[in-house]
């Protein structure tokens, strides 16, 4: 009988933990803000103030718009460079699924892509990038 009485309490506990779990999940996705910026602006912000730019963009999912500087397939990676400022560009390490589209990219082609900003060396480093809304005019 005592055990039977415990069941509603257990149910309440279960529901509460489910709510907490779901709440923490939604909070997590909120921390990754969707930011939109041009490749030139992104490079400019890192060149002028790396510390400030890092606090805004580092480890964030960003949507970038820019023109293709070059594409290469070194070391088994798919890398797209977007024109930035002077010698600095945006280095986009693409996911494997992007091989076909990346091969079709041409110099100076306008593209939009999404990826995780990792910071700045000589270029802004972006990982896990995928192209979005791509119109390849052939």
């Amino acid at each position, binding site marked *: 009988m005592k055990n039977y009485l415990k069941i509603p309490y257990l149910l309440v506990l279960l529901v509460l933990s489910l709510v907490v779990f779901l709440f923490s999940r939604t909070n997590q996705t909120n921390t990754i803000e969707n930011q939109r910026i041009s490749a030139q602006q992104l490079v400019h912000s890192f060149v002028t103030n790396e510390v400030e730019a*890092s606090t805004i963009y*580092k*480890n964030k999912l960003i949507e970038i718009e820019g023109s293709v500087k070059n594409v*290469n397939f*070194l*070391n088994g*990676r798919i*890398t797209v460079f977007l024109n930035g400022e002077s010698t600095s560009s945006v*280095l986009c*390490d693409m996911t494997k699924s992007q091989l076909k589209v990346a091969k079709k990219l041409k110099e100076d082609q306008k593209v939009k892509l999404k990826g995780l900003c*990792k*910071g700045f*060396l*000589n*270029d802004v*480093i972006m*990982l896990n990038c995928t192209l979005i809304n791509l119109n390849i005019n052939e």
Partner: protein
Amino acid sequence: MNKIIALLFLLVSYSNSKIVSTQLTTNQEQVSFFSYTSVENIEAKNNQVLSVIDLSKNKIAISMLMNAFVFKKALMQEHFNESYIESDLYPKAVFEGEILDFDPSVTTSQIKLVKGMLSMRGITKEVEVETNITRENNAYVFTGAFDLVVKDFDINIPPLLVPNIAKSIAAKFRFEYPTDEK
């Protein structure tokens, strides 16, 4: 007299252009590390390492973002960045050194000692690495491996995870510096 001045000017500009062209930069290089223990093997790779060599002075500089190391398991990557390397506080690892007795004009494979200072997690240590240098497809290719002692960089591993992480981490690198020569 005018001819001599013109000749001197040409010589100076030629030597200047030589100095500029002796700096080779590359930004898609590879550094990986491995931790082997009986509990688990951990491997991570960074494919966006920046490096510059100055062939006139035999100097080398390397810089990499610690959060750009990619692991097979996301949880390992999280532990590495948040608990061990603290990549928010110390985002980059930097190496500056010299390639000892290096002759850039040699086209055959040569093994040279690269000696310099490695800074990571705010700690700087002297490092000596045997490096194999070859010439491939109009590029200098530097490859090598070395060990890093976890303790040297004040990395705190929780007692529960001590058996999972090797005391000495094996690091490997491959840098390809393209030259302009055709």
